[in-house]
């Protein structure tokens, strides 16, 4: 076995590593054999391995959370929060982020080769759940040799994983930081995901999911992403960012209006751009599987109630929501806070003021930094005392 403590200590450059496990039993009854998990680490693990923080990424994220990637040269998706002196201070803590099961950035997912057939899994990939995703993360943490994480933190779907960690492996987490998230999707959230899935499956290029040797369902996936981006913003942030501004024109006039359904408004071209950009980095079948896992997620399922589920938790909680987030509205975080109170669990909660909608968890760096830094610091003091 590799000495992960040493590897992490020596890791100065950021690159994605892959670890393989023989088998991962899934909630649906299937067993994935084998399964790969892609991950990155930042900062050094201390001698007693008490300073490790697991970052759980959102729907379309990946293992590259921080630093500049050695191969692609791109910054991590939460680089403004993770690094030396930042909220997740890599001078003090060892931060780990892995790509989720079902993803398409190194961890086994529908685009991976099924060893039984030598072909991509496509739609033969088993149905996965958030607990499955967390189970694989736990195997990685076990292998690294960490018995108790200082914290598990993530926004959106990453928050679901953090919550699941707190009740599935309560003895393994000292603190959890679920941001802009919910313990289960509302009808509205499922509805938006379903629109995305239907857009993909309505694209003839989807071909029942078996498109890996042909053209991928780029149009369907792009439309799905466009819907997603609308839900990540807010009315006021879109007004500020685009308003009714036009591309290359001052005003709409009868003479100048195209009536050709090209992208006349800036918001149209923005969405088209984000949609087409997404196609280059994301697999359509991963979209289907992961959104389904989000919709299935219900922390209370099989545990009696939300409060009964959270009663298992031993961690401290810091929940954060954003005032203009209508995809994961503050009331959903408050439901979790109230359930924690009803079981007298240690919880801090703040609804931050922001106009950025759901995207705020990636953009409101300063205020989140203040909260996360103080919370982690006091948790670390307790853990090391």
């Amino acid at each position, binding site marked *: 076995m590799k000495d992960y403590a040493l590897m992490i200590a020596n890791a100065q450059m950021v690159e994605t590593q892959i670890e393989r496990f023989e088998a991962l039993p899934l909630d649906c009854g299937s067993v994935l054999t084998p399964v790969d998990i892609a991950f990155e680490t930042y900062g050094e693990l201390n001698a007693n391995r008490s300073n490790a923080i697991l970052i759980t990424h959102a729907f379309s994220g990946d293992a590259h959370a921080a630093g500049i990637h050695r191969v692609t040269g791109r910054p991590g998706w939460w680089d403004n929060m993770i690094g030396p002196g930042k909220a997740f201070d890599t001078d003090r803590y060892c931060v780990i982020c892995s790509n989720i099961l079902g993803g398409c950035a190194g961890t086994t997912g529908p685009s991976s080769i099924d060893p039984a057939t030598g072909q991509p899994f496509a739609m033969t990939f088993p149905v996965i759940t958030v607990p499955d995703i967390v189970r694989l993360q736990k195997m990685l943490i076990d292998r690294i040799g960490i018995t108790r994480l200082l914290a598990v933190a993530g926004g959106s779907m990453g928050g679901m994983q953090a919550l699941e960690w707190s009740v599935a492996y309560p003895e393994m987490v000292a603190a959890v930081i679920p941001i802009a998230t919910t313990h289960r999707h509302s009808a509205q959230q499922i509805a938006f995901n379903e629109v995305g899935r239907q857009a993909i499956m309505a694209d003839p290029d989807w071909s029942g999911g078996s498109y890996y040797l042909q053209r991928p369902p780029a149009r369907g996936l792009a439309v799905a992403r466009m819907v997603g981006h609308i839900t990540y913003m807010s009315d006021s942030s879109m007004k500020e960012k685009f308003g009714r501004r036009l591309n290359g024109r001052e005003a709409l006039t009868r003479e100048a209006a195209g009536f050709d359904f090209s992208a006349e408004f800036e918001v149209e071209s923005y969405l088209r751009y984000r949609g087409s950009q997404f196609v280059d980095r994301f697999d359509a079948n991963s979209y289907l599987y992961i959104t389904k896992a989000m919709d299935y997620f219900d922390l209370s399922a099989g545990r009696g109630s939300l409060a009964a589920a959270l009663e298992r938790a031993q961690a401290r909680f810091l929940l954060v929501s954003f005032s203009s987030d209508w995809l994961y509205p503050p009331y959903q975080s408050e439901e979790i*806070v109230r359930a924690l*109170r009803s079981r*007298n669990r240690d919880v*801090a*909660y*703040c609804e*931050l*003021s922001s106009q950025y909608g759901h995207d705020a968890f990636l953009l409101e760096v300063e205020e989140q930094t203040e909260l996360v830094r*103080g919370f982690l610091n006091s948790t670390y003091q307790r853990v090391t005392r």
Partner: protein
Amino acid sequence: MSTVREVLERRDYATIGHIIEPKSRVLDLGCGDGALLAWLKDNKDCDARGVEIDRALVQKAIARGASVYQGDMAQSLSDYPDGAFDYVILSQTLQQVANPVTILREMLRVGRRMVVGFPNFGHWSVRLSLLTTGHAPNTSLFPFKWYESPNIHVLTVLDFEALCASEQWTVEHRIFLAGSSQVSALANLRAEVAVFVVRK
């Protein structure tokens, strides 16, 4: 309420610290920026939690490491199971809440004891102000015009004693503060701030 806040924040710590036993479970209602919670944690090793309605203060409290959540005092209390805390603290806002008796009863359901501090409307300066000016008292203790005051349920030391008697609560400690010292005789006349420790 700046004056009472200052009074409490300067002297109340020693007072509350004297009352609260080490390693207690404490809930501070209207905890502000969490200064008292931090003090209790550092000096008394308490498991200290707090609730605060003001977002900016909640942010400050969490940033200093306190377990504070943003929310309404009454609803927060109703969420907790019976006997969740050793002490529930209401250090300056009793006279500002809509249903003070409901809050106090809830405090004694959730906590084994409550610590209640409030500005004493029976202080001589308040009485003199009304007597001499004929206007609603506007003193250093109650520095508001009647139409600007957040104090909607002002009370005296005697009022609080009477409530405890009628609710059959036991007063364990009474601390009366005036300026930088404690007073004992003629408390309802001389105390600027009263702190009561009460149990069922």
